[in-house]
């Protein structure tokens, strides 16, 4: 049972890598479908931004609240700012955004492509002498790789804003000290490392969700199944990749 599950996982990861190879093959080749790309980017951003907004804001707020309790014991409340900023930049911004995006945009990729598969629309694209990977997967992967870092920056900023609000407005931490501490203890490397993570997560999520959609079988039930799988596998992949990226980059 467990052995079978591991076999399936390794097999599917192999297929995802093959899909990546096909995406890379088609990526530089014309025609460049900018209309399709912008449509995907718009859908991707619009569907996720409000959820990213709320989750990040509250995460920043709760981070400030929790760390206040601990840091107060050392009389180091002004450190809250740097703690929130570093956590958001390096870890929570990219990971939270990736999870939100998996739930919103990733599931939509899987469901949409899955429906197209079971209603033979993907076959139809093929018979019109257009490569379905080129037409459907390339724009979605490019969208994932570019939009996730952008949403991550939004998330970072809102987390810091939430932290500032709780610390300064609710807990009356000195605002000048708060900001000064934050600026001295964080540097651009924190931001960049988070964005590198976001790029990798974007690639993983879009590839896995497109793969799941592409390989859907069995009608409406199959679409539901592959959408669920897409979300579960993508989320797990994000956590696993997060550890290894952190281990390599720091």
């Amino acid at each position, binding site marked *: 049972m467990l052995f079978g599950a591991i076999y399936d996982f390794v097999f599917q990861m192999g297929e995802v890598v093959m899909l990546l190879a096909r995406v890379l093959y088609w990526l530089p080749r014309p025609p460049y479908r900018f209309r399709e790309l912008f449509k995907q980017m718009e859908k991707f951003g619009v569907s996720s931004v409000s959820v990213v907004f709320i989750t990040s804001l509250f995460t920043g707020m709760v981070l400030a609240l929790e760390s206040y309790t601990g840091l107060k014991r050392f009389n180091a409340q002004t450190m809250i700012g740097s703690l929130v900023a570093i956590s958001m930049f390096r870890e929570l911004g990219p990971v939270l955004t990736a999870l939100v995006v998996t739930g919103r945009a990733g599931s939509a990729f899987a469901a949409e492509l899955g429906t197209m598969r079971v209603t033979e629309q993907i076959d*139809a694209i*093929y*018979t*019109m002498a257009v490569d379905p990977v080129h*037409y459907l997967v390339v724009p979605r992967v490019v969208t994932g790789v570019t939009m996730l870092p952008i949403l991550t920056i939004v998330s970072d900023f809102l987390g810091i804003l939430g932290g500032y609000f709780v610390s300064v407005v609710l807990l009356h931490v000195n605002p000048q000290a708060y900001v000064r501490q934050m600026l001295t203890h964080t540097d651009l490397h924190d931001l960049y490392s988070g964005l590198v993570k976001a790029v990798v997560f974007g690639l993983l999520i879009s590839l896995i969700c497109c793969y799941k959609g592409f390989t859907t079988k069995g009608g409406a039930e199959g679409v539901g199944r592959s959408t669920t799988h897409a979300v579960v596998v993508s989320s797990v992949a994000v956590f696993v990749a997060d550890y290894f990226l952190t281990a390599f980059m720091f």
Partner: protein
Amino acid sequence: MEERAAIQVINLHKSFGSHRVLKGVSFEVKKGELFYIIGKSGEGKSVLLKHMVGLIEPDKGKVLIDGVDFHGASGAEALRLRRKVGMVFQYGALFDSMTVYENIAFPLREHYRMGEERIREAVREKLRLVDLEGIEERFPSELSGGMRKRVALARALALNPEILLYDEPTTGLDPVLTDEIDNLIKETQQKTGVTSVVVSHDIWSVVRHADRVAYLANGRIEFIGTPAELLECDNPLVKGFICARLEGDVVEALRRSCSGCSQS
């Protein structure tokens, strides 16, 4: 000199797991003819058809389009071959995120650098060919089953294919609509001269319209010939298929509606 066949299927084998669907299928379709493939459900008719458009790779055997091996070709050659063969799917397979206009324009936009005006003209022309006009801005979900099939046909015609494959075009339609679609297939073949291969299990469509017909059973072609020959055929499998659900006098009626039969 005999003209080269539009499609040659040579000794095609295909298995899914341990299930052997095609066990050595061979036949030819001549240029410009209306060719039917009939057989019971689940005998691999659609699988056979999908080999002819490259959607399925054979385990063994070849499909030649205009003398060129479909599955051996790659790159630009494969693309050129795929453009020669159009396919009308069972449920239309229209892009439901696009309007009728965008659906038919899709292959044009992908393959030609055409101005919007010329695309509009081409779309209108294809829609006229299938007797539909003024529905460009509607979405597929707003169309009836018959209209959707017509749009699917118009889209398949957009690249001016030399060969058109129809996957069960009349399955699940009511008798009136079945007739309508059958006539449309015939008209399209006559108007455009396109070589047409139709997968069906409707014996009436076959006797009325087919130039030639092949009967697929147990993974092999059990019969190939004109509809008249089909009705006279002594093969028990073929007879069983034709006579299922039919009384003797209805078989007579079939013979009468088939122009090639002797009307004694």
